[in-house]
């Protein structure tokens, strides 16, 4: 049994074990709600809507969709983070860019700038600084050209945004897949993210994703673009889905 940890023996900006990370807080960090498991020192956790942090948020957090899920940790001390027992990795960006699945992003330094990627459910980090991301199983770093299962993708850095690759072979060999493909329903099996160019792709060790709390809000926003007739169609579609 290891000796209990204290502020002196806790690691500085490093993993305590694969599933817990200790941040040496000196100032401010953006933090995903509910991921703090313990802290030493004087800290405040404030919602992004609080006036005292509004300037910081305006400058570094341009994703209103996710604003409800994040807080700002302010103060000095040791902050221990964990995420449902998933593996936690820290990444250092050096004047770079990295796009990561929103559900996997845990915390980031306020030196970094957060943007919402045009790929739904993903966030882009720009600048220089450290951020933390969790994954189901260890992360694998791969280089393009590579095709990745959308569920297994954690993020990508320095390479162009991915495009969809549809495996026509799968669709034509699988009668059900073909039928569904014809009416616009895909099972996900025949669809992959295709990465090209130079950069790094981050893949997690499982195709099991973490729930994205913003997925619903994202869809809600898109619905406003629909016409009246399309909304009626969607209403009927949801009705049949619910009764199934």
């Amino acid at each position, binding site marked *: 049994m290891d000796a209990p940890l204290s502020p002196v023996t806790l690691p500085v900006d490093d993993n305590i074990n694969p599933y817990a990370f200790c941040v040496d807080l000196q100032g401010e960090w953006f933090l995903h709600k509910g991921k703090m498991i313990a802290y030493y020192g004087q800290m405040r956790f404030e919602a992004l809507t609080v006036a005292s942090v509004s300037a910081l948020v305006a400058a570094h957090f341009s994703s209103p969709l996710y604003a409800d899920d994040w807080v700002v940790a302010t103060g000095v001390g040791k902050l221990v983070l964990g995420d449902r027992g998933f593996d936690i990795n820290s990444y250092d960006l050096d004047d770079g860019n990295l796009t990561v699945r929103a559900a996997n992003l845990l915390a980031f330094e306020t030196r970094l700038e957060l943007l919402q990627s045009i790929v739904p459910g993903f966030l882009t980090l720009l600048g220089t600084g450290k951020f933390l991301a969790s994954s189901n*199983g260890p992360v694998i770093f791969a280089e393009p050209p*590579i095709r990745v299962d959308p569920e297994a993708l954690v993020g990508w850095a320095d390479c162009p945004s991915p495009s969809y690759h549809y495996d026509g072979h799968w669709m034509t060999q699988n009668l059900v897949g073909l039928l569904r493909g014809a009416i616009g329903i895909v099972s996900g099996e025949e669809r992959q993210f295709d990465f090209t160019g130079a950069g790094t792709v981050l893949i997690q*060790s499982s*195709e099991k994703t973490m729930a994205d709390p913003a997925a619903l809000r994202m869809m809600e926003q898109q619905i406003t673009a629909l016409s009246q007739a399309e909304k009626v169609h969607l209403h009927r579609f949801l009705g049949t889905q619910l009764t199934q």
Partner: protein
Amino acid sequence: MPGYVQVNSKVVQVPVAPGREVLARRGAMLAYTGQVTFRPVTAAQGIPGMLGRVVAGETVKQMVAEGSGQVFYGHLGLHLTVIDLTPGESLQVEADRLLCHDASLTSSVHFLGQQGGIRGAVRGAMSGQGLFTTQLAGDGSAVVLAHGGAIGLQVTPGRVVAVDPQAYVGHRGQLSVDVTAKVGWREAVGRGSGEAIQLRVQGQGVVYVQASEQKF
């Protein structure tokens, strides 16, 4: 040709080449490089052993990877173990726990505890253990899933190993697996030890167990 490479405890990298196709659980592909296509396999397409599987109710859907490249497989964040088979050797594993294997391996469906005939099969059902296991034979590799990794236990004549049915992953070699139930009045009144039903493995070979009594 390099074989299966374990990237980490939960991901395996498998080379695919013409004549070296790989069968895998559907949906377990994480990523791939090169020109690889995936095709669902069903009984109708005449993959040996598939028809038997369907009849036996083994519903784990599979897909075959063809072409040339490298494929990464992983499933639900479960630990995996690569088992290399030599010609003449056979591996019996529950279909649920099979992640992927070389298509060159012949697969067939077997009763667990077939030595006991129908009685063995009934016991298999009783223990909550799948009635059927998939037998793989030939020259190639297979990857099995297990909570916390599969632990190989050596079995030699005269050294019998008893295994909890929930922790049983598979076995290879010349082994006979018998389901034993020691159900007494304590079990009947709910005060049993919880270890009444066991698999007794004897013969020559290796039995694989997982570090958990949880099935998936």
